[in-house]
């Protein structure tokens, strides 16, 4: 966050160091645009749900029953277990366009910024990961996510967890592509460096302007690691409306960054009042 870095550069005094020690000494994060991403070419998706099945298997849950593979019934929404699914939205007169849903892995994620204990983290390589042993269960991430991705293990009484796509961070660390990408039979999903995928999206749009008319994820809420290419507008594909281009954490940061000033200003005013009132009372005596 540039505003944040500049803020600390200009106000890096001893008093502030005590207040914001961690921000001051934290190493500069790598440029998120360099991280991994996935290009979702919706025009190629046939809605087979192989990605959904692969995700369940990789996360250690029961696979989809064979009968539900392809168009058909299923949970039909994200849940603690279902971290990705194919959303068969009714496109009106147009044929139905299946849309894969999962965590978008924002470049500056709201969930990471709101977590009071840092249980969520945007890793340098791209994935937004959840560390369940740190979580306190406040569920602020679920409220804050602009795409309504994190889900909760509501029926666990003692150690409920947040469930969300982690971009197969463990597979990525081993040099493999995410399970859903590996399972996709049509080439809808392409795994790679985000910057290169954006470049490719641009090239595809230039080459076939009739087929590719919209790209989503390039700059919504500051950009996401997952990028969608489609022949219709994002609103028709069920993406949330009214999201700003600026990263959501900067909305909060504008308020939080004023904390040191409030501390100093209120403290000074009160100290002056105390002196003034003490003298007054003494003189009266």
């Amino acid at each position, binding site marked *: 966050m540039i505003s*944040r870095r500049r803020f600390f550069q200009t106000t890096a005094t001893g008093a502030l160091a005590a207040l*914001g020690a961690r*921000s001051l000494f934290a190493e500069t994060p790598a440029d998120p645009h360099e991280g991994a991403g996935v290009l979702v070419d919706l025009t190629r998706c046939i809605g087979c749900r192989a990605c959904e099945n692969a995700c369940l298997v990789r996360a250690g849950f029961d696979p989809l029953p064979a009968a539900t593979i392809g168009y058909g019934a299923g949970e039909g929404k*994200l849940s*603690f277990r279902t971290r990705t699914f194919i959303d068969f939205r009714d496109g009106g007169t147009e044929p139905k366009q299946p849309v894969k849903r999962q965590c978008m892995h924002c470049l500056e994620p*709201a969930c*990471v*910024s*709101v*977590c*009071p*204990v*840092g*249980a969520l983290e945007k890793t340098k390589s791209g994935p937004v990961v959840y560390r369940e042993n*740190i*979580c*306190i*269960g*406040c*569920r*602020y991430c*679920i*409220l*804050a996510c*602009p795409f*309504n991705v994190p*889900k*909760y293990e*509501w*029926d*666990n*009484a*003692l*150690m*409920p967890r947040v469930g969300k796509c982690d971009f197969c961070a463990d597979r990525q660390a081993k040099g493999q592509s995410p399970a859903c990408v590996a399972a996709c039979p049509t080439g809808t999903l392409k795994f790679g460096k985000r910057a290169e995928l954006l470049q490719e999206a641009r090239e595809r749009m230039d080459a076939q302007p009739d087929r590719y008319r919209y790209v989503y994820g390039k700059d919504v809420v500051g950009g996401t690691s997952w990028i969608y290419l489609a022949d219709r507008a994002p609103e028709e594909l069920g993406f*949330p*409306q*009214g*999201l700003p281009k600026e990263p*959501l*954490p900067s*909305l*909060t940061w*504008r*308020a*939080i960054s004023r*904390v040191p000033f*409030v*501390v100093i200003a*209120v*403290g000074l005013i*009160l*100290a002056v*009042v*105390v002196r003034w*009132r*003490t003298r007054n*009372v003494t003189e*009266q*005596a």
Partner: protein
Amino acid sequence: MNEINWILAAFRIIGVLVMMSAAVFACWLLSGRQSPKRTSEVFGWLFLIVLWALGGYALTSRYALGLGAVTHLSDQFPWGIWKGLVICGIAFAAGGFLTACMVYIFRIRTFYPILRPVVLTAYLGYILSATGSLLVDLGRYHQIWRPIFYWQDQSVLFEISWCIILYSCVLTVEFAPILLDKLGWNRVSRVIHAITVPFVICGVILSTLHQSSLGSLFLIVPNKLLPLWYTPLLPILFFLSALISGFAMAIFVSALSFWIFRHPLEPRVLTSLAKGMTPVLLVYLFLRVADLTARNAWVYVFRYPLQGTTFTAEMLLLTLPLFVLLKTRWSGRRRWAFAAAIPVIAGVILNRLNVAWIGLLPAMHSNYFPSWIEITVVLNLVSYGVVIFGIAARYLPLFEHPDIGGHSHASTTGEHEKAIVQLEARHV
């Protein structure tokens, strides 16, 4: 499976019995260590016993079965009225820092007599509605200590947790004299006395921070909170309305407690508080109206019937008292000052519920309404506060003037001297 049901039943029965005996004990203390005499007292006892028995059932169910089984929370609507209680309760504890500031920093004599009851209200507000409610609401309530060691300085919730922890320490220092007077520990009392003013300053700073931060919590959901409430001004509006509710709670608590426990209260106290509240309320309402107009958000009043209604109710509750407050002939009477405080309190509660609940419903495609267990737990937590306050009022020197500083002796009023004489007499 059967065994689990038996264990659950046993757990619930134990919970209900424990809570019922606690209720009987509390009632016994409240009635002056006697069994109930009058009919109204009998009904009071019964009401509390039933409420706490239900609370025992509700709490054991929550801890045995988890959030999903007992609440109407869901992936679609993850924050319910338990979080609402945290947000409301902290707003109402604002009376504490406000009164402490007026007494210890500005040395306004008028407010000396109400310092202790109002600080106790704030203390209970923080312990019960903030910490207590979080202990029920957090999915991993046993990890509540974590923000102390796991820092995440971009999070508003992290800042609020720290402010709550530190401010609870401040409130302990502010509350301690009441207990120390009772125990007669003069040496400890003197130490506390010496550090009070710096602690009060810290308390005001912390309160300014987290009262506004409760509003900042919702800055991250621009696409979910209805424009009737979502504005970049949220932190400022939350701070101002906390000040307003602080004044209103100070009026409410001091009037009620002095009337119920039959202590004389100078008429000036309530009317001065009302006078302090008026300009803040005016600034707040001006900001709200200007902000709604600038963002062209008024149209949403008609677009969403439920939200339009609660918004209108909130604005009316906050505007109507002005008719009383701005007319000196009325606001100069303490009955009217008291009457003006009640709609203000209701208005601020409604504002918090609108921001944290009702205003979020349309965009989150939810029709969340709390389950009976959620409501019972809220009523229970509030009733714990009321009961502890009542017991403290009966057994602790809650209505005596605090001794503010070395110089204040010089210009004491007759009443104050009497209080000090009483105090010294007890210590002898």
